[in-house]
């Protein structure tokens, strides 16, 4: 089960790399290529040493030995082993965005994002330490105060990564003063409702629309706490004036409750939803539908 999931995501990554390689303007793609080359080089160097020739490279994650395929990031390798590293903007099907910083780990004593750092043989990675979980809890509290999150009335409750992660990290209060930002709701589309009050700026909808749907319906624009938001590709700024469809990958990718199908409220009762059944740390290899 795990293996096949990995293969699928590895294939997806390879496909993505190929697609991106055709577009020279996408600077970050070749980052991948370069690091992949570097890792391949490293692998070759290792292969020349007979003693290690048959060994798969490994690193230590909270004391547990994790093997990895050269080119994998830390979080990819951990996920392949069913080990949970908290995250919000990372999704196994897509290239890392690196913005939520929830997956921050300590690599050989230094902070780094596990979704963008390549796994390297022999590294020591701290993940679920008190220090790191404290920082993650603060980041979660930042999310809860910068947006308008009302779990009890949210259709995504029980299926929401933000909520599930907050349970996992035992966040009991938002701690900071709420910002109560003024964010728009877009109900223009016949089949889809957009409630930006819940947006965590992960950009997954942007990526899915661009790379899977080939539509570029969304773009993350603007600057700073008040300015940064999803821009919609129409002059009116309304979803109805785009070619967005409820069957798009982007329509089902949102980890929180921004992009919701209309007329399907509470089809699955609260208590029987994804994270009601098992906590998020035990659903690691699953891909969000």
């Amino acid at each position, binding site marked *: 089960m795990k293996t096949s999931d990995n293969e699928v995501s590895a294939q997806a990554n390879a496909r993505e790399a190929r697609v991106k390689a055709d577009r020279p*303007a996408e600077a970050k793609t070749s980052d991948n290529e370069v*690091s992949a080359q570097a890792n391949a080089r490293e692998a070759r160097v290792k292969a020349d040493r007979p003693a290690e020739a048959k060994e798969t490279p490994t690193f230590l994650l909270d004391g547990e030995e994790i093997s990895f395929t050269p080119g994998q990031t830390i979080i990819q390798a951990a996920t392949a082993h069913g080990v949970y590293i908290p995250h919000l903007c990372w999704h196994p099907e897509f290239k890392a965005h*690196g913005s939520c910083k929830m997956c921050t780990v300590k690599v050989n004593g230094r902070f780094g994002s596990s979704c963008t750092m390549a796994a390297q043989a022999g590294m020591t990675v701290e993940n679920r330490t008190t220090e790191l979980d404290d920082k993650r809890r603060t*980041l979660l509290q930042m999310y809860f105060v*910068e947006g308008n999150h009302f779990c009890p009335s949210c259709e995504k409750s029980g299926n929401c990564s933000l909520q599930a992660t907050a349970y996992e990290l035992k966040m009991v209060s938002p701690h900071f003063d709420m910002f109560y930002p003024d964010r728009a709701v877009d109900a223009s589309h016949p089949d889809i409702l957009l409630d930006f009050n819940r947006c965590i*700026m992960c950009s997954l909808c942007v990526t899915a629309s661009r790379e899977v749907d080939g539509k570029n319906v969304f773009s*993350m*624009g603007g*600057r700073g706490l008040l300015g940064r938001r999803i821009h919609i590709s*129409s002059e009116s700024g309304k979803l109805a004036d785009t070619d967005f469809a409820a069957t798009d990958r982007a329509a089902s990718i949102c980890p929180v409750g921004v992009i919701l199908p209309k007329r399907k409220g509470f089809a699955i009762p609260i208590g029987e939803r994804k994270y009601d059944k098992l906590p998020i740390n035990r659903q690691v290899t699953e891909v969000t539908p």
Partner: protein
Amino acid sequence: MSDNRTIDAVLERHGRDGTHLVQILREIQEQLNWLSPATLTRIADGVGWPRAQVSGTAAFYSFFHTRQRGKYCVLWSDNITDRMLGNTDLMDAMCKKLWLEPGRVSEDGLVSVNTTSCTGMCDQGPALLVNYRAVTGMTLQRVDEMAELIRRETPVAEWPADWFAVQDNVRRAEILLAGNFAPGSALRAAHQRAEVDGLSASNNRSFRESLPQGIAGPMAMLDEIQRSRLRGRGGAGFSTRFKWEACRNAPLRADQERIVVCNADEGEPGTFKDRVLLTSYADLVFEGMTVAAYAVGATRGFLYLRGEYRYLLEPLQAVLERRRAAGLLGKRILDIPGARFDIEIHLGAGAYVCGEESALIESLEGKPGRPRVRPPFPVTNGYLDQPTIVNNVETFASAALVALHGGDWFAAIGTKQSTGTKILSVSGDVARPGLYEYAYGVTVRQVLADCGATDTLAVQISGPSGMCLADDEFDRKIAFEDVPTAGAFMVFNTSRDMFEVARNFSHFFAHESCGFCTPCRVGTTLVRNIMDKIANRHGSPYDINELFKLHRLMQGASHCGLGNTACNPVFDTLNKFRPAYEHRLLSLDYEPAFDLDAALSEARQMTGRDDAGAHFAAHSPDEAKA
């Protein structure tokens, strides 16, 4: 000309190339005053980019207006040095004259007045931008006159020319500011170090592995840079030789070329040396860029000029034109076969984060200035994925002198680890603000004496993201090994309140955070709010602890240097000037975040009651007695 024809003309001039988007948006806005939804659609269609990407980019930069703006847009520079020169009162006076609320466009659509981040005129403030043209030395009289000109709708081009005069204020010169540089001399010197030369072989994989004919000159140049031990002047102090060599050795794919970028996005508040270098020493800077191109084998160059220095665009283009005519830029530089290099100027549009090299490259590519995930670094994967060096203006100027006089000459100046000179932008409580060039190793005390500072309480070095030094540290040296700096040197005397300094900087970072990563996007605003809470006398020791906690989180978890350093001024002043915070705290014990009794005042007003029972009695003297 109709709007559409204006838009199309600009699009045509840029070859409908989306990577020029920031320039396209700026040029169209300069003519149409703002970027309407229809304008953005036409631009998106014209360059063939998703409309959301175009509107998202326009919304990223402070200087782009996606809502109708006033015919006159006045932006007061709001660095702490402008504050100390009284900009707040002047801006209030202007708003009163014009019957305006700050940040709002007047009812008749004539004018808006607001603040902006430091415009780089700290030695001649209070400064402002009017329709993005720099104005210096504001006074109450000028406020009156300016309000009158706005009311009469006199075009900015007809305003008194002396308002737009910008002084160099060079107070102390060593090698860079000496001003005796002959254009072309550095390139000729570099070329003459090798007998057989040319740039044509610049695509060679690694010059250390093989040495074909034709790159002896570039090699010799790199060796001079190595001998000079030149380090980057932007603050980080990275070895220039390592950067250049890595770029030169980076493999090129088909249709790629190497790129030289000069970072003139001088956004760090309190820094204005690059403005002077580009005003009066532009040949030295461009020659340094050309020397770099020669050394690394680059054929294309960019000067990324901050939007606040818009007024320098035409003079700089004239310098480039002159250099082309003199054979110092273009297809056959100094008549060397294959020696091809030219420089384009790209203007920023009000975004401090674009000073970070990968964000700057994103902006050059027509995108929001969002720092990239690194590695890989720009030397291998920079502008449009091509090997790119990004260096500071002053670094290139220094490189030109290394080419001219040799590395050994340069390395003899300064200290062992910090060779050459550093230009300091001195402002604040000093008798003679302006530029001071010193050999590295000069003490802070010496600088203070030279610029006529008395009763000095503190010096903020290298801007808000740098460090704050108290008087027991004034014997420390300006050098990479002691006090590194990008050039800002803001002086505060004993009449100043260091809490207010830090609070000003916290507002700056909250405004300039790009918003990409959570710790910086939310953290900078939380820090700003806590600083405001303390300023409003609602703070308690709890808030001090919160500041430390946020500092620890942002320093470790942020995506780039902006978030990592955003708490530095708060952290430094908390450690060195703690009483400035504590005398504002409501009590040195813990206190509730708000006054419960005051919160009841609205209810009392509504019910018409004001008896004892309508008051929260927790802090009443009666209860204390009971």
